[in-house]
C-alpha cells in the first residue's frame, strides 16, 4: 500500500497539483495507522514509521534516514498526546484526528523542508510557502477519507 501510494503521489498526482502542492498519501496512511495503533505499542509505531519513512526517502534525493527518524519521533509524540486525550467510550474520535494531523503534517513538512533545502532559521517564513499549505489541504482530504473508510471497516469487523 505504501509503495503504491509512493508511486501514485510522485507521478499521477503531479498532474493534479493544487498550486504546486501534491497530496502526501504516504504521510496520510502513516498517520492513520499510528492514530489507530495500540496505545502501548511503541514497536508498532516504529515499524510503520520505518516503512513510511523508507518510501518517503527513497523517492527524495537525500539519504535514507531523515523521514524515518522524523516519523518515529512524530509517531511517538502523537501516541503520547493521544494517551493524554483518551476518552472512555471512543479512543479514536474524529475531533482529535484533524488537529493532530495538521500539527504532525506541518511539523514534518517544516523540518524536512529545512533539512532538504538547507534553509536558515531566519528564512522560516519562506519555508512555509503556499505549496505546503495546499499540500496540507490536499493531504487532509485524503486523510479524512482514509479515516472514515478505516473506521467503517473497523465497525464492520467488530
Amino acid at each position, binding site marked *: 500500500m505504501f*509503495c503504491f501510494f509512493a*508511486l*501514485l503521489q*510522485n*507521478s*499521477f*498526482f*503531479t*498532474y*493534479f*497539483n493544487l*498550486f*504546486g*502542492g*501534491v497530496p*502526501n498519501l504516504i504521510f496520510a496512511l502513516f498517520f492513520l495507522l499510528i492514530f489507530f495503533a495500540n496505545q502501548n505499542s511503541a514497536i508498532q509505531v*516504529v515499524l510503520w514509521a520505518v516503512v513510511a519513512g523508507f518510501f518517503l526517502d*527513497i*523517492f*527524495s*534525493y537525500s*539519504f*535514507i*534516514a531523515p523521514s*524515518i*527518524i522524523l516519523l*518515529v519521533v512524530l509517531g511517538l509524540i502523537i501516541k503520547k498526546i493521544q494517551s493524554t486525550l483518551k476518552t472512555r467510550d471512543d479512543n479514536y474520535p474524529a475531533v482529535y484526528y484533524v488537529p493532530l494531523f495538521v500539527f504532525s503534517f506541518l511539523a514534518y513538512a517544516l523540518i524536512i*523542508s529545512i533539512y*532538504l*533545502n*538547507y*534553509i536558515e532559521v531566519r528564512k522560516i517564513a*519562506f519555508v512555509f*510557502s*503556499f*505549496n505546503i499549505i*495546499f*499540500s496540507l489541504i490536499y493531504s487532509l482530504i485524503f486523510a479524512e477519507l482514509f479515516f472514515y473508510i478505516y473506521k467503517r471497516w473497523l465497525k464492520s469487523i467488530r
Partner: protein
Amino acid sequence: MNSINKLSINKKNTHWLKFLIGGIVFLLLLFILNLFVSPVRNSFLTLFSPIQKTFWAAGESSSGFFGSLLNSGSLAKENNNLKQTNQNLLAQIAVLQSIEQGNQAQSLVSASCQNSGFKLLMAGVTGLDDNDILSISKGSADGVAQDMPVINQQNVLVGKVSKVYKNFSKITLISNKNSVTNIKVQQSDLTLPEIDGVVRGNGGLTAHLDLIPINSSINPGDILVTSSLDKSFPKDLLVAQITEKIKNDQKPFQQAKINLFFDVKKADNLFVITNYKKPE
C-alpha cells in the same frame, strides 16, 4: 519500602537502557543502509519505473481529459499547441536578437554551434517529488553525468542533473528552492544595454525574478533567457516571462513575478545536453 523504591528505579533505568540501545542499533542500521544508498535507490526505482511511467501517462491523459471537459472540447489541446508554437517563436527571437546584438558574423557562428553542436540525449520523465526534483529514465549507463543542463524540445531550460544513478537521474528544476539561475532580459530595443538578473526558485514549480538593478526598466511580458554569466547553462535558453513587477523602494534591487516556460505537465521527454562544456 526502600527496597521497593530501589527496584522501581532499577526497572526505570533498565527501560531507558533498553531504549538507548535500541536507538543506537536503529541509527547504526540506517547508517549501514546509507552506505549502499545508490544501488538500493537505483534498483528500487528501476524495478518500479514501468509502473511509475504508467501512472505518469495515466495522469497526463486524465488531466488532459478533465482539462478538456472543463474547457469545453478541444480548447485545452488548442491552447497547448499555441503555447508550443509561441515558445518556438520566442526561442527563435531569442537567438535572432543575440545574433544582432554582437558581432554578427561571430554570433552567427556561436549561435549555430549552440543550436547544432550540442549532443542531446532524450530521456523520459518518470516522476516528480514535492521538492521540484524530477526523475528521468536515463542514468550513468547512458552517459548522463552530474551538472549536465536539461532542456525541452522548445529550447526551454528545465534544470540540471543533480544526482546520477546507473539507470536514472534526478534533475533539480530551476523552480527548486536552492536553484539560482543567471538570466538576462530580452530587450525589444536592441540599442539598450543588457539587463542581468537572477531567477530564484520558490518551490512548488514557481520562481521569481531578482537582483534586477533599480534603474533598469523591466515590464510585464519581457522574456528572460539564460545569460552568458551563468556558466552552468548555455546562453539564450528560454527561461520565463515577466508577469508582474514587485515594487519595493527600500530594496536595492527590483523583483518580479514570472511565469516559467517549462511546464512539468507537458514534460514527457526532456533532453540532456551531454557535451556542454562550461566556458573558462
